[in-house]
């Protein structure tokens, strides 16, 4: 699929098992560079596992993963994780202020974040500079997600992995985050891989969509596939009958 675009990440026959349970079965496919690909599917389909493989938080049991045409094992872990950033579903914060959270990626490398840059990052995610010195414990769910995304952006990743970042947000915050991700994608040409349970969101935001079930990729293509899926299982899932 997506042969007209250069792949940012390519999976070749990737299987992942844990304690004899097959979580991902023979996954093959590419995530096009500079595009937004949404991952949809019922809980337990293996979507988060797939993202963790991309960030190399876990390794595949068999098969190969290529990041920008280079085998994932050939990257230094730190170099790879700066290249492929990840925002987690629960947006975990470290103790301290928003600025300390934004500084985390650089402080891990022994560097300091310029407060001006921190303000710009906050502005990018739709938060004012007054949030900079606010404690991370005082943030709402939506604000935490925005800070989490901004923190991931500090490393200027070429690929951004988003794990259900809008699942617990109200409509207004959800809309803001959708706009923000589209803006990041367009402004920096960042490749986005976004897990979502919201099929409307997948259709609206995604250029491409992977539908996953039981550790397998059932159907892939342009996100419009969700309007008229070919696969019967996907058709039932889209109708809300499969989950």
């Amino acid at each position, binding site marked *: 699929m997506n042969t007209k675009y250069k792949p940012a990440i390519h999976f070749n026959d990737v299987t992942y098992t*844990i*304690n004899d349970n097959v979580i991902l079965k023979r996954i093959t496919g590419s995530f096009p560079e500079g595009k937004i690909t949404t991952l949809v599917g019922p809980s337990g389909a293996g979507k988060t596992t797939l993202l*963790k493989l991309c*960030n*190399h*938080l*876990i*390794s595949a049991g068999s098969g190969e993963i290529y990041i920008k045409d280079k085998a994932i*094992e050939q990257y230094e*872990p*730190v*170099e790879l*994780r*700066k290249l492929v*950033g*990840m925002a*987690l579903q*629960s947006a*975990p914060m*470290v*103790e301290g202020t928003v600025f300390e959270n934004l500084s*985390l*990626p650089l402080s*891990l*490398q022994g560097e300091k974040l310029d407060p001006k840059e921190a303000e710009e990052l906050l502005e990018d995610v739709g938060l004012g500079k007054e949030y900079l010195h606010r404690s991370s414990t005082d943030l709402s769910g939506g604000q935490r997600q925005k800070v989490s995304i901004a*923190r*991931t952006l500090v*490393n200027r990743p070429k690929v951004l992995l988003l794990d259900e970042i809008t699942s617990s947000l109200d409509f207004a915050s959800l809309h803001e985050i959708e706009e923000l991700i589209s803006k990041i994608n367009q402004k920096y040409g960042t490749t986005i891989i976004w897990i979502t349970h919201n099929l409307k969101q997948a259709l609206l935001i995604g250029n491409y969509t992977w539908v996953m079930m039981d550790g397998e990729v059932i159907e892939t293509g342009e996100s419009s596939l969700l309007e008229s899926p070919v696969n019967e299982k996907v058709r039932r899932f889209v109708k809300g009958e499969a989950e």
Partner: protein
Amino acid sequence: MTYLTLSITLIFVVIPLVLSKTLRLGLEKDTIVATVRSIIQLLAVGFILKFVFDSDSLIYIFLMVTLMIIVATHNAKRKGASIKGITWKVGLTLVLIEVLTQSILLGFQITPPTAQYIISISGMVIGNSMVLAILFLNRFTSEIEAHQEQTELVLSLGGTPKQAIHSQLIKSIKASMIPTIESQKTVGLVQLPGMMSGQIIAGADPIQAVQFQLLIMFLLLTTAAVTSTMLGFLSYPTLFNNRMQLLKNR
């Protein structure tokens, strides 16, 4: 104290037994087992110590201390069963504590190099170190489980395993050291240490007993700090592989 008067002290065992029976606590069997075991174990140790003290042989001292370290290691390692190689890590920590404390005590001639001193102090140091190791491992494994997402967050942002586990490691080291520090803050005000009380009852000069107790307390501070720190820094690398991934099956 005669064996007759010692047997009268069993009244203090009968009281909890009666309470347990009356309140249906179900602790009668455990209380009896604990009493019988403590009588057998302590009497056995008493006879062994008498033999070792009388012989004053370095080999017996070495064997006694080695036995203490083996038993303490076996006891502590169960709390860290999920950490790879925990037996040698706990064992090495206890050996280091023993070598460090005895080197200082004997090197500066603080205590004489006799079985009486070496074995008694080793027992306190190793015993305390074992309890601290259990406290530390208990807390550390809970922290890792509870904050797995925090660890993965730091790794996902390009942090090293040491950076990813730093906060959990520090919290666990502090948590295991706090009881030792806190108990020392109130010593003499709230409780009189058992060893000091024992010396005073045995007829020792209270000031001498206090001096010796202070020595033991300072030793235990070092024991607390070194045990948890060393065990922490020996343990955390085995939680990760060389690709900087947090291992699920540790």
